[in-house]
């Protein structure tokens, strides 16, 4: 079980949260990218071996949506890689 840091409530049990999926890259302009890239953006879910940025909803708490980085190898919540957000 993870402890997820809520910006309003502080660390809370994973069971209080609902998973909101990985953060996708920004939506490209469909007319400015190839069909292949557009289809990839629509259908491919980020699933790296390592840190992945995820959205979580504190649904059984304060209701805040938050973003964390989680390492898929260790299940640990980690710092953003390369100093990113």
């Amino acid at each position, binding site marked *: 079980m993870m402890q997820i840091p809520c910006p309003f409530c502080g660390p*809370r049990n994973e069971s209080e949260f609902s998973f909101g999926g990985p953060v996708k890259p920004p939506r490209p302009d469909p007319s400015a990218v190839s069909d292949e890239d557009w289809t990839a953006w629509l259908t491919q879910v980020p699933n790296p071996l390592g840190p992945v940025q995820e959205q979580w909803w504190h649904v059984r*708490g304060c*209701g805040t949506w938050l973003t964390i980085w989680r390492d898929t190898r260790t299940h640990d919540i980690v710092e953003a890689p390369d100093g990113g957000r």
Partner: protein
Amino acid sequence: MPYDVTFERLETQALHDLKGPREALAAWAGDALPPFPDQPNTKTEAGGATLMFIGPDHWLLRADLTREGTLDAALRPAEAPPEISLVRVSDTLAWFRITGPDAAEVMAVACPMDLHTSRFGPDGAGFTEAFGLKALVTRCADGFDLAVEQSFGPMVADYLTRVIS
């Protein structure tokens, strides 16, 4: 192992859900409200009413049911400016009071949140889980008050009965 606690289902409480910038809420209804709590998931009390800081720009006002009409009149929900929302939600929650020397032990069965006084002080009040349900937890004299969505009231009464027996 029997726990040294008692629990009772409280009568419906007067509840108003307040949303919007604190300054705007204070300007509209400040006289009717206890002072705004500064820390997340804490409460303040004044004049028989309790104000709980339950989320970003989100508060819950609690009082005895006899004061519901007075608070309605003071909050004037229908006339409020558009940047704030004041909604009477008294009927949405079923309340339980768990008191006694082992109240914290029973809460530890129900709730994953750290309810030690160092983390959840005398003014603690906020939403978490109880028996897997979204639940409002706050302290009262000698124990805790616990509120869940109204329709789960009989189920939580049953769970509490099983825990303490």
